[in-house]
């Protein structure tokens, strides 16, 4: 059961700028409602942080996305989980360089607390 992105996803597009890399974005749950295209491929500058990537995503998909994932401009909701290539990451983590390949960036907002 190894996680690997679907081969049927969009192929890697041309880089938008020198050294840009492509990231495959998987938005799940309520975020998927905001972006029916899954995965979405985005060209990003090399070495950007997860927070910066979320900012780019917000510009692409609109304010509703950032309102769903960011508690403040500098802090995401604790119930928002981000993974790169299956590993959990935080806002300050940088995207890995993936020569010749794509990084899979997953984003989901989980549910809130319960009692008992």
């Amino acid at each position, binding site marked *: 059961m190894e*996680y690997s992105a679907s081969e049927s996803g969009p192929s890697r597009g041309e880089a938008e700028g020198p050294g840009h890399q492509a990231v495959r974005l*998987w938005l799940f*749950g309520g975020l998927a409602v905001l972006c029916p295209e899954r995965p979405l491929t985005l060209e990003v500058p090399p070495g950007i942080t997860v927070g910066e990537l979320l900012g780019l995503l917000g510009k692409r998909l609109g304010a509703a996305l950032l309102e769903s994932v960011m508690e*403040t401009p500098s802090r995401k909701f604790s119930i928002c*989980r981000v993974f790169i290539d299956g590993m959990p990451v935080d806002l300050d983590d940088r995207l890995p360089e993936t020569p010749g390949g794509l990084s899979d960036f997953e984003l*989901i907002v989980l549910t809130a*607390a*319960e*009692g008992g």
Partner: protein
Amino acid sequence: MTIHLSRREEKPSNASGIDKWVPSACALCYATCSIRAHNVDGVVIKIEGNPDSVVGKGKLCGKGVSGLMGHYDPNRLTRPLRRTNPRKGIGVDPGWKEISWEEALTEIAETLKRVRAEDPRKLVVQRTTTVTASRIPFHSFAAGFGTPNIATAGGGLHCGNGAHEISGIMHASWSVVPDFAYCNYAIYFGASKGHSAGHASCSNMGLAADARARGMKMVVVDPMCNFASAKASEWVPLRVGTDGPLALAMCNVIVNELGRIDEPYLQSKTNGPYLIGPDKRYVRDPGSGEPLVWDCGCNEARPYTKVPSASMALLGEYRVDGVACHPAFQLLKDHLQSFSPEAAEAITTVPAANIRRLATEFATEARIGSTIVIDGVNVPYRPVAAIAFRGSQGHMNSTYNFLGIDLLNQLVGAADVAGGCLGFNPACNGFPGTGRLKYRPKPGRDGLMVSGTWMGYHYPYPMAEPRAPQNIGLQDLFVMGMNSPFLASSDQEEVWTRFGLPYRPEVLLNFGANMLMSMGTKETVAAALQRYKLIVSFDLFLNETSDFVDIVLPDCDYLQSMDSRSTWPFIFGHPAGMGEWCWGIRQPADEPRGEQRRFADVLLDLADRVGILPDVHAAMNASLNLEAPYRLLPDRRYSWDEICDAELKNNFGEAHGLGWFKKNGVITWPKTPDEPYWRATTEARVPIYWEFMVDIHEKINKITQQCGYKAPDEYYDPLPLFNPCLSHECKTPGFDFYAFYYRDTLHSNSYTTENPWLDEAARLDPYSYTIVVNRSVGEARGLKSGDLIRVETEVGRSVEGRICLSEAIHPEGLGIAGLAGHWHAGMPVAKGKGVFFNELLELDFAHASPQNLNLDLCAKVKVTRIGEAP
């Protein structure tokens, strides 16, 4: 590593079938004790505790051993049902018609697809607290669907908005318990850990009994002398809902009269040294933004990270940039002076002399400064614990009641050290074979403690940022709230309109919760349920809530179900203190009957039909922390068993998958002292001064000012106050009893009342199905045990039942065992037994704490005799 096995024993029987003992897990309450179920020729004939597991320690309570009676109840549902009568009401026949699973799931999926396209927040997912294992499947379904609206009906609403929040902030855990193995003096406030159902129930019963036999003194503060009090050294009766002032008066005695505090602990493990300015906020270093402390070594204010804790001032007044400021502890010390034992006596009815004695005993027994060697490790030793739970926190003053009680531990350094008040396993070094399941509290914003793990995703600290409501419970505005009454309040539409909720719920997906009985007065809940366009409910029986359900799905019970994490998480239901870690599974001991299906597989099927299976898989990957190669693929269809297998291998290695656990039941490994007694070696502080309340208060008011609402100041002070219940302010002549409910140890929530064995035991018990009033008070009014009485609130809500006069209740109290009084034909054993207490509870904004939304669980009532004893 030591692995103990509880093997699945299987041998041919004398008859034609099989004879096997199946290691599994109970689900008659959320303690989820490990069991062994004996199946002979396809019939479960006995259930007993699993001695190979520390979750239950081989013991099983009366509910657990009676489980097979519920399992074989002929009233169990076996076919999906759809209502034919569109009219919904209490006692109105839905006109049930049997339908196929295909019909049921097709209709549900079509509606869910429409709702998700419109606004996924219109779905509300609700489940009973009893089956802990339902959490991951239902939470993942909700997250995959995209709704934030998760609820746990009355079981959650009544249970722990204060208890879990403060246990999280102060102990990094879901709840607290004495360190039974080493504690010498435990004081319980409205709690029954070790004497009833609940977290680590059977384990704690054994531990508590051993502690009492060893000589641990146990004091129980409670309006009623029942499950914990009856086994205590001393029962301290008090007026309902006044636990906070009692605890704060004890704190006052300890600090201001005895002066017995653990200064090194307060300096190094709390925010007691942080300087507080006249605006009630931290005085911060302009450069780093860190809170300042007064460094007694160099006589100046410096950031807390730059000063040895022993040099931090706890007392005094200082000036920073010309502005007067005080250490937080000084403010607490001054604040406590308003809670004199004499003032507390007037509020609680506990004599001032007793308050002083209890405080003195607690401070003396704490042995401040002592250490003990455990497993070769020298650790701090404070053999006292003050614990609390639902009874004391189920009021308007929920947060402050619990905080006041926990301050007792903090003042003497008895928090998460040997013998003290322990969170349920806040730190775990992980499974030795894989390193998985490792977590530990850590310092967060301003050096205050952040839990290493949290059960509900929303961490108790740092507090969330208040925002305009997106959740029907308004917890995202009132961020200290976990469970909310607005799912069914009488004024929900008014509340939603006032605070600007941008949508309205349409579909309720319910798992086993009987909302009509568990939340509050039934007419109010009924009106809320009538507003849904579709209600789907997974149930074992038809019950009172079924009268409002559109489609009923026949569920498997715990003896027919599979779950890979029946004891998870360790902060919830695993015994605290030294001993062993234990992870057990639940597995079927019997087959489904008729068309019963396991809820987890049904949810996966439904997710596939709605088109959200990849989303649900993503939620499970995140929730279960699955890593390669065990992460779930987005588009592959898994059975629930396969997901359980993935989780177990992810945590315990490839060799310990579902097959291994089916055979062996549980896996265990030893704890080390730095796990239960993590506090001394963890660089995190806890807040004895809740500075963050100032900020939260301002932000809530900024959001709500446009609708004319201002959160009351007295609920957002950084230091604990006493805010009375509405019942305390009722002065109407004739209404002179404080009605409260208690959790009967014979029953869990509302559904075990259908169990014939438990019902028989409850009928033999003089209290379970009656209304308990103090004997002297009752006799003075001419009442005698067995009389039929009516109990009525000021607004005319009433219940009727037989009275039981007893010395074991406070003179002002009126006690009723919770969640009896069924009236639905679907549970014929339970029908007509006992008293439905929740009928007396108002469900509205006025009866919810404006701090954490906790419902006020008491009512001022009058008593009228309406019939003689038979």
